[in-house]
């Protein structure tokens, strides 16, 4: 509103017009503080003014109660010299002043303009200038009412000008204050009369609005807004009072039947026509409200607060609709909807380009809501006027005439508006839009869809998804009516999903029902079946709907060309309650009891019900010693740490009811696996089991997973079952399941081509075992050499044994079997059931083997008449003792030692021993006690000794036979004999070697680090075969005590029966140390080999020189040096046990003493 306070100017118009432009510009440049009465806050105001020439007639008097068009201030301009003033101007001023006084106007100012010529004079005669004259003539009481201006641009005239402007502002504001105060007093007085008869709100409205105009004019938009808000509140209060019975007469004019429902118009900031209507008390409620709101909007627009406009618009629309209802104003059906639509759209269109700087979010939020509101109104209109799709009939004649009425109702004022606003034609006007929408179904649909999408998009944009879903659902309804279910499907399933996720079951089911209808029309069988099943099992829906969809699903099941897999839940709830056995054999039957709950409305005839069994690892269920080795290597931890590994202990008990969360037990141990410090079971998912369910959102289920059919595992099937609504108990007979430990896998219910699947969550399990018939021998460890009673357990396994079956026991290997049965054949007396056992007692004996093995494995065959093959059972015998022999030599004398070593705790006695040689040239002289009995066990062995005597120079190979009787102390039967055979060859002594250590130089004793002489004497035994031609080789082995200097080996031959040589040796350690060893070999090869060249074939230990092939000395060319050791007993080393004393040398600071 471009009005400014009006100021009159009188006097010298030439002066005024020269200053006019400057004045208009200068006034609003700086704000002036405006202090106001009634303690209202001071405001800074940019004062503006518009100037009109003065005329006596236009002066207002007190009776005129306007504010805006009032003449606030009067200025008299004067520019003349003293003469002129006296002659002419003085009279003019006094006329002017008198006129103002007559009207009781104190707001005036006389401006004296000093042109250059007057200036000098005034200086000469300061007391007699025009200024002084006027001051004394007119402004004696109020000297601030006169002001002097000077022409020119110098600083003095500039500062005069500035102070003039500020004086003028202040005076203007004073004038405003005076008028406002007066006005407000009047207004308040008028308001106080509101309950008096004859008071009229419309009148008062105009009065207070004037105040608002005034504030708006001064740029005080907030204050202007307050005036309107007060009016709004006052009006609302009247309506509320009316509703509660306090009717006021002036409301009657507003309550006239409403003929027009033109929307709000925001094109102009003020509509004077409407204001005049209100003034004349002719406006309808809608018009009044429109006007009031348009004024509020105008001010808000000036304040650049479009968000506030939209926010207020919602309230305004709602409140006005309520008021229309409260006042029971007659209006055409749909008229109010038209009005809301038009007004809402007007606001939206006005605000859509503007962004609220204060709160853009709140703007978009309210925008979304307003769009939604507008859309709903459009939908209502569409329904009223028969424009919604899906109606087969064309709009009826009443509906058509209604459209015409509605169009005319909103058009009347619109036409006028358009006439006034030619420049605004470019914009799409809401009424045009509505007219278009109401014109035909197609355009209605287009506009409705367009605006709904807009509303939904805006809601989504600001994150109000629930509201967006709601619109989506409305849109889906619309599409359904439009016959485009495929478009509706997405909206519905989105809505359904979000209701489902949030746990709004009723809304979910209602939406599901719509979705099912939609999918049925789309003819998507898979999706439809799924949705329809969910519908059928709903608790919130009508029985008829459920039945319709159930029967449609069953029809789909019969007709569908392809197989449809669906989740069983929620239509069918499958639970396995019991498995008849925990363990069965392979070919045994067992039963699984299932509860199938049909939550649908009617019977379901299903082709089959099946259940898969999943094999789980066998060691999980049967914990035994063997399982240790199969388990993964456990981590050994500190005792303080506890470990949980993956050993699942499966619960094999039949439990009838499971919790939702299965308790998952694991083996738990502390410390070492083999020797644990503590062992127990621990629950690995304790956090899940013990989770608080009250405050931790456990109620909502997770997102559904796709359905896949389990085709891998073994399956049990039951055909043709009728499932009645409610719980059905089904028993599945299980046969032919292969061996294993099974848990329940997936259950499926097949109805026609639809299969309902569910994964079983159950800890029920069954072990199917495949046990063959086998024999077990008790006790499992037996001793050889004893007759022992054993028990044979014949485990029937899976094959029951009938009465009269025969078992033939046959000993293999060296076992002797004695039994009480005829022909070693057992006839089963009592039938043995599956898994049962029958016992047989037999007596077994096995010869001990003296040759050294600890255990003897033998086999017994059980030839069962009902089995195709004989059962082989391994029997293990422990050898009770081992017999061995040893040859001893002392010079020429030979001894044979026999040893019997026990291997078991069981005590045996041996007696009646004898050693017999097969040669008569040999005498064996027993050195043992005669007729004694010796005990043998694991801790006690026995030795027997014979001396061998012979006069022959060379003995052939001789066989010996050692016989001994033995018996077990705990057995009372007679003793048995063992025979041990062995042979000896060339064991007679050929050479004896003597050696000595002699200190050399003057030493009396050997010193460490000092060389000594080591002499060797080889002597051939008399009476033996001479070996003169045989080259011999000796070797001195110093071991760790001696260091051999020079050659440690030498080749010689024994001529004359003796040979003596010496080598130098140096003791390495002090103390009594044994002599170096001397070994003798047969030598074949060059006579004088370097010792390094001598290749000692066998590094044999001590004097155990085993013979190799005797013929070797003839073989091969002689060029290759070759040594051959002597047989055992052929060389006797006399100095074997000799020792010599070695003293520590002084040279070394340390004494090294070795104890031997």
């Amino acid at each position, binding site marked *: 509103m471009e009005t400014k306070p009006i100021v009159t100017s009188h006097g010298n118009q030439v002066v005024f017009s020269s200053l006019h432009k400057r004045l208009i510009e200068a006034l609003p440049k700086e704000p002036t503080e405006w202090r106001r009465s009634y303690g209202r806050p001071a405001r800074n105001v940019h004062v503006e003014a518009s100037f009109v020439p003065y005329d006596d007639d236009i002066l207002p008097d007190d009776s005129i109660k306007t504010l805006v068009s009032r003449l606030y201030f009067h200025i008299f301009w004067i520019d003349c010299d003293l003469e002129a003033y006296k002659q002419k101007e003085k009279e003019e001023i006094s006329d002017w002043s008198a006129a103002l006084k007559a009207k009781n106007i104190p707001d005036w100012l006389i401006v004296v303009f000093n042109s250059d010529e007057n200036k000098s004079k005034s200086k000469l005669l300061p007391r007699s200038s025009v200024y002084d004259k006027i001051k004394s003539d007119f402004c004696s009481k109020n000297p601030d009412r006169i002001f002097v201006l000077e022409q020119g641009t110098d600083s003095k005239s500039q500062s005069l000008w500035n102070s003039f402007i500020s004086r003028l502002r202040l005076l203007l504001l004073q004038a405003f204050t005076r008028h406002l105060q007066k006005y407000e007093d009047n207004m308040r007085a008028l308001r106080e009369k509101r309950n008096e008869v004859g008071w009229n709100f419309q009148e008062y409205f105009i009065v207070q609005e004037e105040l608002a105009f005034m504030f708006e004019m001064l740029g005080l938009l907030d204050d202007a807004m307050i005036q309107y808000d007060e009016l709004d509140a006052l009006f609302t209060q009247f309506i*509320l009072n009316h*509703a509660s019975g306090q009717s006021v007469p002036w409301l009657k004019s507003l309550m006239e039947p409403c003929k027009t429902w033109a929307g709000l118009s925001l094109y102009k900031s003020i509509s004077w026509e409407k204001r005049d209507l209100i003034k004349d008390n002719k406006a309808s409620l809608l018009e009044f409200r429109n006007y009031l709101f348009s004024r509020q909007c105008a001010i808000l627009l000036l304040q650049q607060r479009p968000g506030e406009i939209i926010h207020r618009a*919602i*309230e305004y*629309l*709602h409140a006005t*609709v*309520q008021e229309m*209802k*409260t006042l029971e104003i007659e209006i055409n059906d749909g008229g109010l909807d038209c009005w*809301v639509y038009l007004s809402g759209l007007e606001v939206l269109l006005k605000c859509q380009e503007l962004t609220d700087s204060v709160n853009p979010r709140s703007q978009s939020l309210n925008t979304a*809501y307003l769009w939604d*509101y507008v859309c709903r109104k459009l939908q209502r209109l569409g329904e009223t006027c028969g424009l919604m799709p899906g109606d087969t009939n064309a709009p009826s004649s009443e509906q058509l005439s209604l459209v015409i009425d509605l169009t005319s109702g909103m058009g009347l004022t619109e036409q006028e508006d358009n006439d006034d606003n030619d420049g605004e034609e470019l914009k799409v006007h809401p009424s045009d839009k509505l007219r278009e929408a109401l014109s035909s179904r197609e355009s209605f649909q287009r506009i409705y869809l367009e605006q709904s999408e807009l509303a939904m998009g805006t809601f989504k944009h600001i*994150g*109000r*998804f*629930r*509201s967006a879903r*709601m619109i989506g659902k409305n849109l889906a309804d619309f599409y359904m009516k439009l016959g485009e279910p495929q478009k509706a499907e997405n909206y519905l399933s989105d809505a359904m999903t979000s*209701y489902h996720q*949030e*746990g*709004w*079951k*009723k*809304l979910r089911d*209602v939406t599901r029902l719509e979705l099912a209808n939609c999918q049925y029309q789309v003819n998507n069988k898979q999706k439809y079946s799924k949705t329809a099943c969910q519908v059928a099992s709903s608790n919130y829906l009508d029985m008829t709907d459920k039945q319709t969809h159930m029967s449609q699903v069953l029809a789909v099941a019969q007709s569908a060309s392809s197989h449809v897999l669906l989740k069983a839940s929620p239509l069918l709830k499958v639970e396995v309650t019991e498995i008849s056995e925990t363990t069965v054999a392979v070919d045994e039957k067992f039963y699984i009891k299932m509860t199938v709950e049909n939550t649908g409305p009617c019977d379901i005839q299903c082709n089959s019900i099946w259940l898969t069994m999943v094999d789980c690892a066998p060691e999980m269920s049967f914990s035994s010693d063997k399982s240790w080795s199969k388990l993964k290597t456990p981590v050994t931890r500190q005792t303080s740490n506890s470990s949980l590994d993956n050993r699942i202990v499966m619960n094999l008990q039949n439990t009838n009811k499971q919790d939702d969360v299965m308790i998952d037990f694991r083996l738990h141990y502390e410390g070492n696996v083999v020797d644990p410090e503590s062992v127990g079971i621990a629950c690995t998912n304790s956090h899940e089991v013990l989770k608080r*369910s*009250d*405050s931790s*959102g*456990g*109620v*909502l289920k997770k997102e559904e997973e796709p359905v896949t059919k389990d085709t891998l595992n073994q399956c049990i099937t039951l055909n043709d079952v009728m499932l009645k609504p409610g719980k059905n108990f089904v028993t599945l007979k299980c046969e032919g399941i292969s061996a294993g430990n099974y848990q329940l896998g997936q259950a499926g219910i097949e109805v026609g081509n639809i299969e309902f699947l569910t994964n079983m969550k159950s800890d029920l399990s069954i072990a199917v075992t495949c046990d063959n018939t086998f024999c077990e021998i008790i006790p499992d460890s037996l001793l050889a050499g004893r007759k022992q009673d054993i028990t044979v357990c014949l485990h029937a396994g899976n094959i029951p044994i009938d009465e009269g079956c025969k078992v033939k026991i046959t000993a293999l290997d060296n076992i002797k079997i004695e039994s009480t049965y005829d022909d070693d054949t057992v006839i089963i007396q009592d039938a043995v059931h599956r898994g049962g056992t029958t016992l047989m007692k037999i007596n077994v004996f096995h010869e001990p083997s003296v040759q050294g093995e600890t255990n003897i494995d033998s086999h017994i065959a059980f030839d069962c008449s009902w089995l195709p093959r004989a059962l082989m059972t391994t029997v293990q015998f422990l050898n009770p003792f081992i017999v061995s022999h040893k040859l001893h030599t002392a010079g020429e004398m030979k001894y044979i030692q026999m040893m019997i070593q026990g291997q078991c705790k069981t005590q045996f006695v041996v007696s009646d021993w004898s050693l017999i040689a097969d040669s008569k040239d040999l005498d064996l002289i027993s050195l043992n006690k005669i007729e004694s009995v010796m005990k043998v066990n694991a801790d006690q062995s026995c030795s027997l000794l014979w001396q061998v005597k012979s006069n022959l120079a060379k003995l052939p190979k001789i066989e010996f036979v050692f016989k001994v009787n033995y018996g077990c102390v705990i057995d009372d039967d007679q003793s048995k004999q063992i025979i041990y055979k062995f042979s000896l060859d060339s064991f007679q002594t050929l050479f004896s070697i003597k050696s000595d250590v002699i200190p050399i130089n003057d030493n009396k004793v050997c010193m460490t680090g000092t060389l000594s002489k080591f002499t060797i004497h080889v002597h051939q035994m008399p009476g033996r075969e001479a070996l003169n031609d045989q080259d011999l080789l000796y070797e001195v082995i110093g071991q760790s005590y001696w260091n051999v200097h020079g050659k440690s080996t030498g080749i010689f031959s024994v001529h004359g029966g003796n040979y003596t040589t010496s080598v130098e040796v140096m003791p390495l350690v002090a103390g009594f140390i044994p002599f170096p060893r001397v070994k003798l070999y047969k030598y074949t090869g060059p006579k004088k080999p370097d010792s390094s060249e001598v290749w000692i074939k066998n590094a044999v230990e001590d004097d155990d020189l085993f013979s190799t092939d005797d013929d070797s000395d003839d073989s091969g060319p002689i060029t290759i040096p070759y040594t051959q050791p002597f047989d055992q007993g052929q060389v006797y080393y006399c100095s074997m046990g000799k020792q010599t004393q070695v003293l520590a040398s002084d040279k070394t600071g340390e004494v090294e003493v070795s104890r031997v």
Partner: protein
Amino acid sequence: MAVCVAVIAKENYPLYIKAASADSELKFYYTVHTSLDVIEEKVSSAGKNANELRELYLGLLYPTEDYKVYGYVTNTKIKFVIVVESSNSTLRDNEIRSMFKKLHNAYVDMLCNPFYTPGENITSKVFNNTVISMMQE
């Protein structure tokens, strides 16, 4: 006089919804569900200045032409929604506040029952009677 009273769990699923008339029940389900948008917004915007003690009463959530929806959130994030008719001008903010207070007290009494598991649908008769009395006032 309320036309619909709803109690909504922390996870936004309904614990209790009672409408004055059975016919309009579904409509109020939608209304209450939609109001959750506004409640979430108000609660999350209040949560930004955590030091301030949040007022439980959320005020008018949103008006429709016929109804006004008011919200209230307990400290345990249980939401109460009361829907009143727009035409009922006697109900001011204070009346609504006292209705919520009453509802909250009834809810707490109901929750004190050891046989009630938090998160289950509310079936308490006493609670139901309180709600019915709020609708008949």
